């Protein structure tokens, strides 16, 4: 049921201007190559959903692909700010960016509700914080048994969820391990899904701690070795901490950022490895 396609064909077929696109990967297995393909194909007006927007989100925002960002923590982990995200929010460059902001627990449970075929999920939310009332997708709800007030969050159903995994087999069953984040829920909540993988194998040998996405829930697999750099794929690569640190200087200035994208991401560029 899964198509195995080259990355450019996969993105062209699955993602359209104006779509709600989830890119997930919690520090580990971030789908950088797919994000760069979105930039190359000039996607516009995207609603980008990502719990932890980091460099790939900074790049998509700085290149003007994103109209709305749905997120719960946006930064360069251990380094500092995302300058393109800040420039968009503080100075509307390259254009105004709308945001819908949650706590991690709130956004994770929006995916859970979507994956569960429920209209909403319940959690102990953000009572008393400034987040209350800022999202139309968060409401208070009373327990029918105790009367206690807790939070309800609306199901999230991305048009497309994009994740990176270590392996897929030839029929499209996907295997990922290490920090598995919210990827399973993101894929199950979405209408369509793209999984980029380090390699395609004949058979998925069982791995401790592995999550399996059966092919019947995966629309498309693309084999993109190293497609998560500068993030990492446990068992295949290590996190390029130096690149994360260097991004601060690259992204701080608009021209430097645009030059870097032209040199490393845009069509004809040499690829992102610095």
């Amino acid at each position, binding site marked *: 049921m899964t198509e195995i396609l080259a990355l450019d064909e996969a993105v062209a077929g699955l993602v359209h201007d104006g779509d709600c696109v989830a890119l997930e990967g919690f*520090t580990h297995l971030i789908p950088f190559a797919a994000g760069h393909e979105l930039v190359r194909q000039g996607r516009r007006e995207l609603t980008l959903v990502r719990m932890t927007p980091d460099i790939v989100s900074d790049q998509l925002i700085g290149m003007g692909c994103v109209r709305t960002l749905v997120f719960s923590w946006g930064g360069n*982990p251990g380094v500092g700010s995302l300058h393109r995200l800040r420039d968009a929010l503080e100075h509307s460059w390259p254009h105004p960016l709308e945001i819908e902001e949650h706590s991690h627990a709130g956004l994770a449970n929006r995916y859970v509700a979507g994956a569960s075929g429920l209209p909403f999920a319940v*959690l*102990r939310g953000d009572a008393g914080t400034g987040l209350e009332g800022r999202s139309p997708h968060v409401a208070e709800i009373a327990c029918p048994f105790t009367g206690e007030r807790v939070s309800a969050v609306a199901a999230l159903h991305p048009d497309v969820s994009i994740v990176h995994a270590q392996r897929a087999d030839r029929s499209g069953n996907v295997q990922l391990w290490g920090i598995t984040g919210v990827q399973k829920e993101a894929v199950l909540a979405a209408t369509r899904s793209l999984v980029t993988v380090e390699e395609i194998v004949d058979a998925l040998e069982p791995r401790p701690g592995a999550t399996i996405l059966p092919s019947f829930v995966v629309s498309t697999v693309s084999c993109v070795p190293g497609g998560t750099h500068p993030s990492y794929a446990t068992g295949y690569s290590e996190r390029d901490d130096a690149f994360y640190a260097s991004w601060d200087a690259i992204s701080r200035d608009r021209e430097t950022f645009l030059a870097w994208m032209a040199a490393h991401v845009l069509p004809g560029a040499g690829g992102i490895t610095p």
Partner: protein
Amino acid sequence: MSLGHATPAPPATTDEIMAVVAARELRGTATCFVGIGIPSTAANLARRLYSPAVVLVYESGAIGAKPLRLPLSIGDGELADTADVVVSVPEIFNYWLQGGRIDVGMLGAAQIDRFANLNTTVIGDYDAPRVRLPGAGGAPQIAASCGKVVVVMAQSARTFVGELDFVTTVGHGDGPGARERLGLRGRGPSVVVTDLGVLRPDPSSRELVLTAVHPGVELATAKDETGWELRVARDLSTTVPPSTYELSALRALVAEREPRR
């Protein structure tokens, strides 16, 4: 011949004092939910010095992580590789944090107020931010559900403010009874460790009270660097300086954080 004295190690930096004092707060802790930065340094120092059995829990899903090197991010491979188990992000928040299984949460912040409410969202107006910060992440639920919270942050008139630009995380709200009214089940911030000293909430008013200053810090400085009328404990003490043992352990831990091969 003489019994030569070892040359003394360089004195502790303010970051080192914060890490050591925060680590001391974790004595006897069974489970700790750890954010990145000085909280992570302190938690890992505590595991080496005071609580070898402490279970470090990271929001990336790593439970029982025993990193040999300090992680740069909460999703560092080292955390998963050394964990007793790695669970999904929804599970870590729903079953483990919200489930009320974590004794202590460690948090930092860009702004704090007299009731230890925290801002990590924005400086200035939310809709026209002067400085946009990362946002909430796990902080609201860490502060809501952990048994208690240890806050670690530098103290200045810019960070210790009369009114937060944004309430990202509720500490003690507007004072007595606030947490109960909001249905927050943990006891909230029990201590704030800064580069100048240590503050603890008054048991009745819940307002932060300066209970200790670090060696060489003037009380006046602590007051000047606080954006509200700072209350001071009658028995204000001076922090026991980091011991050679504590400092060398901390410096060894930090030294292990080098770029990967």
